[in-house]
């Protein structure tokens, strides 16, 4: 059974190799091959899962040692896999959602001539992500981590002919690098502290290590997680990453890649448990990102960017939960899984809408689409209900638990974190309702109406004729796209309930994360009630603002906060002012120092050497007699020196 673990990674890796090296010959079957191999990985995962279920809770961890990678005395790095309950959860999510998105992409990318390459990249991404969650040591995890970064770069910049996509890919890559530096430093620290990278020994040894070292490692791991999971302050790449094809947004930036940071923190739980300061920072980062993403999501008119803000916010919830320690690990993972379902469903729904609307992304030019794309409407709607935490759906169970756990943290921290989480839930309800109403309800703003431009009557006829051509014809997407959406909608609806009833998920992860209930100052019912109240408030606000009044096609100027949120709360401006300008000034001054000081010294040395040589050259007049004089003089000096030494 252990031998199947390597196949989990090998199948998509093989697909990537074949598709990327195969050439045009594979153009016609490439997408089927890629999907098949992704599905194969999922099948292996299911087989391993059923096998695992048949064993006792303590015997479920499987490991497979492939080969010794860097066998150096005192530095042993192996290519070895470890499959426990945590990894299993991720493997199922990654391969399952990944396979669905492969299927979806067959339809979505039908008209793209580089579809084969796209599937190659998708497979590469799957392989890297699976390697990340299956590795049994941090160094191999780092390989997967980098592989995910690479695949994400390739996929975001897939439409590289668009400068914006190329820039976004570069941005994502660079920001991720910052986080990767954190991970590499963390691994180095681990090696100096523990002398090994393997999960088992490292996590066991945390008990005997000083808190300072653990805090340092924990903060570096957090930096890594911030980079990959788009948490403040490394969040800026996620919004731009929506330049990639929609399946990429769904796969990478909703369901899998961004969860790598959560995985890292939960996996390294023992380190964080030993470093309360690092844990506190983790919760703060999570709480800040939660609000940050939610606020950004409220202001965006681009449907994908609104969902991206939502993703950031939901990952913030997970990081917050992961920072709570054993109280929250389980709920972080549970929310991660349910979020994987409904966010993938929402993104696929958004992609379906765009597919039917000539790739229009501005929600202000949508409206009333429910009649034209019923399947999309229903699945998107179910995802919507799940994310806002409608009672009985997935999000309700998982998010509610996180809010409870935040309160259970205890003390002032618990109250603050819990309130933030509650506020986040309200904002989530608000912006998701906004997206829902602007897209599927209200008047059909995509129709070109004669009254649309009263200010320019002269341009009217032209606009009309042109408009008749351009007017989108909303239609339902093909089966290959709708079926994955339906499957994901099922997950969005039932996953949470399935996990929560009888605390199934908690027991499942118990051996890995050691669940701790904590003692909440508020009863579960109180928290649920409060959540319901803020939910209703959020939905009502959105309805009042967007459902009752017509939505203007051009965005109003908005308040200061709205304008800031539209610009991603000035994150890029901040980066520009602090990092770019600062860097420019630094380089300029360094260049100045280089020119004046370093070059001055070098040139001065060269010039003085040149001058000296020019003068010394005159001694080299070629006359043997001159040389003889120097020789004779030298001999005289030697004799004088000898005599002097003897005299002394």
């Amino acid at each position: 059974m252990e031998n199947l673990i390597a196949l989990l990674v090998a199948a998509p890796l093989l697909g990537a190799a074949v598709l990327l090296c195969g050439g045009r010959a594979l153009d016609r079957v490439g997408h089927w091959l890629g999907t098949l191999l992704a599905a194969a990985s999922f099948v292996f995962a299911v087989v391993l899962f059923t096998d695992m279920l048949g064993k006792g809770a303590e015997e479920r961890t499987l490991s497979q040692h492939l080969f010794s990678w860097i066998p150096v005395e005192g530095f042993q790095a192996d290519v070895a896999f470890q499959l426990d309950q945590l990894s299993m959860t991720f493997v199922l999510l990654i391969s399952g959602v990944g396979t669905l998105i492969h299927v979806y992409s067959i339809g979505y990318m039908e008209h793209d001539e580089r579809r084969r390459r796209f599937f190659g990249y998708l497979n590469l991404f799957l392989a890297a992500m699976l390697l990340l969650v299956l590795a049994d040591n941090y160094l191999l995890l780092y390989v997967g981590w980098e592989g995910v970064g690479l695949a994400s770069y390739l996929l975001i910049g897939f439409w590289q002919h668009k400068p914006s996509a190329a820039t976004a890919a570069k941005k994502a890559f660079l920001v991720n690098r910052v986080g990767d530096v954190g991970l590499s430093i963390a691994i180095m620290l681990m090696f100096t502290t523990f002398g090994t990278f393997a999960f088992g020994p490292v996590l066991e040894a945390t008990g005997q290590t000083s808190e300072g070292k653990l805090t340092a490692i924990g903060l570096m791991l957090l930096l890594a997680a911030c980079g990959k999971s788009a948490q403040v302050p490394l969040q800026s790449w996620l919004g731009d990453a929506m330049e990639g094809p929609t399946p990429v947004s769904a796969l990478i930036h909703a369901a899998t890649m961004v969860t790598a940071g959560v995985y890292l923190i939960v996996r390294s739980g023992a380190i964080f448990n030993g470093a309360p300061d690092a844990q506190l920072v983790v919760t703060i980062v999570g709480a800040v990102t939660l609000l940050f993403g939610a606020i950004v999501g409220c202001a965006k008119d681009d449907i994908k960017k609104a969902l991206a803000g939502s993703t950031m916010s939901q990952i913030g919830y997970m990081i917050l939960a992961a920072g709570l320690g054993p109280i929250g690990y389980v709920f972080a993972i549970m929310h991660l899984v349910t979020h994987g379902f409904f966010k993938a469903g929402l993104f696929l729904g958004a992609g379906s809408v765009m597919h039917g609307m000539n790739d229009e992304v501005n929600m202000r030019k949508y409206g009333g689409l429910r009649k034209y794309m019923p399947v999309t409407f229903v699945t998107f709607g179910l995802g919507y209900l799940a994310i806002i935490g409608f009672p009985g759906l997935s999000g309700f169970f998982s998010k509610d638990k996180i809010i409870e756990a935040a309160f259970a943290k205890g003390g002032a921290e618990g109250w603050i974190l819990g309130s933030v989480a509650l506020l986040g839930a309200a904002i989530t309800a608000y912006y998701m309702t906004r997206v829902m109403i602007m897209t599927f309800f209200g008047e059909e703003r995509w129709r070109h109406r004669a009254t649309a431009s009263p200010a320019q009557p002269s341009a009217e006829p032209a606009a009309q004729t042109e408009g008749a051509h351009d007017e989108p014809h909303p239609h339902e997407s093909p089966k290959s796209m709708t079926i994955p959406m339906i499957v994901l909608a099922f997950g969005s609806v039932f996953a949470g309930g399935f996990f929560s009833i009888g605390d199934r998920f908690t027991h499942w992860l118990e051996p890995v994360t050691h669940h701790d209930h904590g003692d909440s100052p508020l009863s579960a019912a109180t928290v649920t009630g409060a959540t319901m109240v803020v939910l209703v408030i959020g939905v009502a606000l959105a309805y009042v603002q967007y459902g009752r009044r017509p939505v203007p096609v051009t965005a109003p100027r908005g308040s200061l906060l709205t304008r800031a949120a539209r610009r991603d709360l000035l994150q890029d401006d901040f980066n520009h002012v602090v990092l770019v300008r600062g860097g420019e000034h630094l380089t300029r001054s360094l260049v100045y120092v280089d020119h004046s000081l370093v070059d001055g010294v070098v040139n001065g040395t060269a010039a003085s050497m040149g001058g000296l040589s020019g003068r010394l050259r005159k001694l080299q007049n070629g006359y043997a007699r001159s040389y003889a004089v120097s020789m004779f003089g030298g001999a005289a000096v030697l004799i004088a020196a000898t005599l002097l030494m003897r005299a002394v």
Partner: protein
Amino acid sequence: MNPVNYLYLASLLFAIGATGVLIRRNAIVVFMCIELMLNACNLALVAFSRMHGNLDGQIIAFFTMVVAAAEVVVGLAIIVSLFRSRHSASVDDASLMKL
């Protein structure tokens, strides 16, 4: 008289010979000056021999003579071939090492 005067005489002859090497341009005269220096050394060696009361100094002087003979043969041959190719026996004319 103290026999050490022979050493002073040898030093004087050596210095004169060295100065001659430096100021004369005719290669043959330069060579003669070198011979003068060698002879001055020989005189010193002979004086040393007398000073120490053994014959080793004279042996060295003898070897010096032999080596000087060999050197003169080769050196004069070089001068002759140099004269043939350059029609000059001036050491300054062979200043090809200059830049």
